[in-house]
């Protein structure tokens, strides 16, 4: 590894000071004089025709300034497929869908006004699960689907509930299965879960009478949000300004466009006044987006020696009432559909399906938690059936340099080392070692599961960064990657300082974007900020240095190529005694007679990922700029009398290339693994007749400090990435992905029951244990 000054150091993050002192401002902490408060009236039905909306009484209530609904605000939005009205139009498609909204001088009055809005509904048959949605003659959630606008890289299907079908075809699937010694077929399922950011969603908007709109939002994507707002409300980009304060957790749920249009719609009716709309916890559960539920069918053919020769997979995502980000989740899961395996013959189909459930959106992992649950459970089943060690079975079949992945990209030495991740986890878990003696009803087991993920982004997902020198030659670096907790402020400062050859204490990262002033950034999603914006920062520093050299060359009567810049000075390479201290040049160089040349130094750098679209019929192409490989393992203990599951040990090893900041990298890995563990053992949005039953912390639990495994370990494998800044690779989402499969595989190892459906609650495990016992009884 190179000798870095800032890279690889556990630099504390600049934003942590603000946050630990209570100074950091989040959306709810922002107030304006004369501000109004918004509240939203939501549908109590999952699917119903709206017969009539009467807002007259609400409008007359003293203190109410604006009431709006579809008739006043007939706008639609959508990231890739424009299917979603700001307010339910004609019918409601999920319980919790906004029907109307009010703005008033106090929250209490707004609340009171909601009660005065009269809505008449006529209920429709509810599409309550994936099977129902796919049935012939199923009620259509969107009968007008084919009339919607959508990007041509997505494929909705006429007269169905399918809003996107992604196809992957590689090799010859029939020939592949003919070669197989054994064939395994299974089905797996996982339910909808919520992001549960600790900060509820919120936005504040003001629509001036001259047509200018300002929006503060707790968001991951200020520029994309601006773009989608101006699209929905038919404005010009220059008239919309989005300002992003600190975000109290996103995990994908605050990406793209979300609840902001509701605040904007109210602001449009209350011109010249700020309207603040902060969701309650219940609204955050039901009125934002969720991770889609998924049902997966997998068929795998294996040779006598344990080499996978063919695989056919179908994934059906419950996208809920609107396609949203789900369209692209379906695509990303579709092109990665077999996971990090080298398989010659593949047939993959990934479907996004409308139901009357909560709206599916982006969620940490972006379809990969779902697909790996299917693949990594299946791999374990096959290994055991073939009497092979599950770690060894994976070593034989995973991608290695020279292999070609699902979309036909060739793996190189730079892509990352999947095998090293497996080895590291196996070693730490004492894989294959004997277990200690325990009481008869306590069983221990170990399991592991691998994963891969690339940033899922369109080919034009670009980034920009700016580097500004101050008078004393300290530096401010600007970018619009959002600090959503992941630590990009620290990482980008480190990259900037490294490139500047400057001490990190001389660099200040101005992270919180304002679209009027900040450089462009597509979105803070896909674990891409350190990787993509890091490259833009490097280019910005190089640009600033070029500008300094140009002026210095004039002073020295030399050419820029003969000069170099470090953290203190610009100097002649051949004669380092000839130099200009940076403070004397970064605002322009002044000769003794007062004449000044040059000017304030600002470097601008951009980054473009260079990808291609994928072939419509085969899904082959170059949609992934880099891959992060990983392996996760667990040791668990199961009480066979109660089903109680205890996780003793949880380990994750990821090839994250050069580690920019070990402190924040560890934070991402452990935080992601614990969120993954929650999704494995406890989290589930529960429905009855299309209605969510557990939209509160009382009924939807997440893990607490008291629920942690006894041991949690994060391991860095560091194979530098060819395109990443200083060789860094993405790691934000990955740690969440394969924890469920690792735990399920460990449960199987412990008690011999295979669970196909998440979450692995104690009751779920006990049910399987009882079924196994009953089965044995029958066989006797």
């Amino acid at each position, binding site marked *: 590894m190179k000798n870095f000054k800032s890279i690889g150091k556990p630099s504390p993050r600049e934003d942590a000071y603000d946050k630990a002192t209570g100074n950091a401002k989040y959306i709810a902490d922002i107030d304006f004089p004369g501000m109004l408060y918004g509240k939203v009236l939501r549908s109590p039905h999952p699917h119903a025709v709206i017969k009539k909306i009467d807002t007259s009484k609400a409008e007359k209530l003293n203190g109410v300034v604006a009431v709006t609904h579809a008739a006043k605000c007939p706008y639609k939005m959508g990231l890739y497929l424009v299917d979603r009205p700001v307010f339910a139009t004609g019918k409601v498609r999920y319980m919790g869908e906004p029907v109307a909204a009010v703005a008033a001088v106090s929250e*209490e009055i707004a609340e009171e006004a909601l009660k005065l809005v009269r809505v008449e509904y006529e209920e429709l048959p509810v599409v309550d699960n994936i099977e129902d949605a796919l049935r012939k003659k199923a009620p259509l959630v969107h009968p007008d689907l084919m009339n919607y606008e959508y990007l041509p890289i997505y494929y909705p299907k006429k007269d169905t509930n399918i809003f996107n079908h992604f196809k992957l075809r590689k090799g010859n699937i029939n020939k592949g299965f003919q070669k197989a010694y054994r064939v395994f077929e299974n089905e797996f399922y996982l339910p909808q879960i919520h992001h549960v950011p600790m900060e509820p969603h919120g936005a504040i908007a003001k629509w001036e009478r001259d047509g200018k709109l300002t929006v503060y939002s707790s968001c991951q994507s200020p520029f994309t949000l601006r773009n989608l707002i101006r699209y929905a409300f038919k404005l010009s980009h220059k008239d919309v300004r989005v300002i992003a304060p600190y975000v109290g957790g996103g995990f994908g749920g605050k990406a793209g466009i979300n609840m902001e249009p509701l605040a904007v719609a109210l602001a449009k009716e209350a011109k010249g006044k700020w309207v603040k709309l902060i969701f309650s916890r219940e609204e955050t559960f039901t009125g934002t987006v969720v991770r889609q539920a998924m049902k997966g069918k997998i068929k795998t053919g294996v040779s006598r020696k344990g080499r996978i020769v063919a695989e056919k997979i179908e994934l059906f995502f419950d996208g809920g009432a609107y396609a949203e980000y789900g369209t692209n989740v379906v695509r990303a899961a579709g092109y990665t559909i077999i996971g990090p395996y080298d398989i010659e013959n593949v047939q993959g189909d990934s479907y996004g399906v409308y139901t009357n459930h909560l709206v599916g959106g982006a969620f940490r992992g972006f379809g990969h938690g779902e697909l790996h649950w299917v693949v990594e459970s299946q791999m374990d089943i096959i290994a055991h059936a073939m009497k092979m060690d599950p770690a060894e079975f994976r070593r034989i079949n995973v991608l290695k340099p020279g292999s070609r992945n699902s979309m036909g990209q060739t793996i190189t030495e730079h892509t990352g080392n999947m095998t090293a991740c497996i080895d590291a986890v196996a070693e730490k878990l004492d894989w294959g070692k004997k277990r200690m003696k325990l009481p008869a009803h306590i069983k221990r087991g170990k399991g592991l599961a691998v994963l891969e993920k690339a940033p899922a982004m369109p080919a034009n997902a670009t980034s920009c960064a700016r580097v500004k020198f101050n008078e004393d030659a300290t530096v401010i670096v600007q970018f619009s990657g959002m600090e*959503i907790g992941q630590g990009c402020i620290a990482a980008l400062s480190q990259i900037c300082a490294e490139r500047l050859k400057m001490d990190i204490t001389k660099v200040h990262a101005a992270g919180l974007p304002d679209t009027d002033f900040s450089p462009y950034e597509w979105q803070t999603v896909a674990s891409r900020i350190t990787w993509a914006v890091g490259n833009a920062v490097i280019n910005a520093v190089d640009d600033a240095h070029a500008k300094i050299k140009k002026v210095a060359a004039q002073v020295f009567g030399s050419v820029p190529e003969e000069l170099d810049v470090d953290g203190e000075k610009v100097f002649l390479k051949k004669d380092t005694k000839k130099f200009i201290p940076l403070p004397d040049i970064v605002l322009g160089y002044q000769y003794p007679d007062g004449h000044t040349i040059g000017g304030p130094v600002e470097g601008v750098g951009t980054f473009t990922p260079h990808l291609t679209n994928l072939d419509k019929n085969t899904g082959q192409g170059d949609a992934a700029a880099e891959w992060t490989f990983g392996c996760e393992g667990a040791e668990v203990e199961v009480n066979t009398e109660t089903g109680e599951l205890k996780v003793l040990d949880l380990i994750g090893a990821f090839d994250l290339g050069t580690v920019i900041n070990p402190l*924040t990298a560890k934070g991402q890995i452990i935080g992601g693994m614990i969120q993954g563990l929650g999704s494995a053992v406890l989290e589930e949005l529960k429905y009855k007749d299309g209605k969510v039953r557990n939209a509160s912390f009382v009924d939807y639990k997440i893990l607490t400090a008291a629920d942690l495994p006894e041991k949690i370990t994060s391991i860095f494998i560091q194979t530098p990435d060819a395109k990443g800044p200083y060789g860094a690779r993405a790691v934000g989402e990955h740690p969440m992905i394969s924890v469920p499969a690792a735990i399920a595989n460990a449960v199987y190892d412990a008690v011999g029951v295979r669970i196909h459906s998440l979450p692995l609650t104690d009751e779920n495990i006990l049910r399987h244990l009882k079924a196994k016992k009953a089965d044995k009884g029958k066989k006797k």
Partner: protein
Amino acid sequence: MKKGFVHEINFTVNGIKRALSVHSNETLLKVLREHYGLTGAKEGCGGGECGACTVLLNGSPVNSCLVLAVEADNAHILTIEGIAAKDSIHPIQQAFIEYGAVQCGFCTPGMIMTAYALLQKNPDPDEAQIKRALSGNLCRCTGYVQIIEAVKAAAKRMKGKRG
């Protein structure tokens, strides 16, 4: 509008004596945030389930979203804004920063106040005691491990100072 009765309360907030008229249904969280601009305590759920609104009431951690302002009459309230010394932040704050215990930061003020109360009562907690004490404060980002490490480190430093 149902507003409830108005009460006069006297209490101390971060060492400053305050008097205020409050409605009987107003929460302590709302009073701190809206009357005094002390927005360090956050509302994560408004129902006593997440701990983001934790402040100390007479030295004990409470979910201020569940405490009525009238219940704070005559009490001493300490918030995240009140624990730093004049020129340096509190050792727990410092440890949270150094140990990577802060990600999105929304749970952080509540976590720190709970840790503060714990270390006041028990300057030398073991890991199980720390986990138990923090179990009412939800964090979605960190997986808690670095928070626990920070509390341990802070305990050590604070003991060092006292000893």
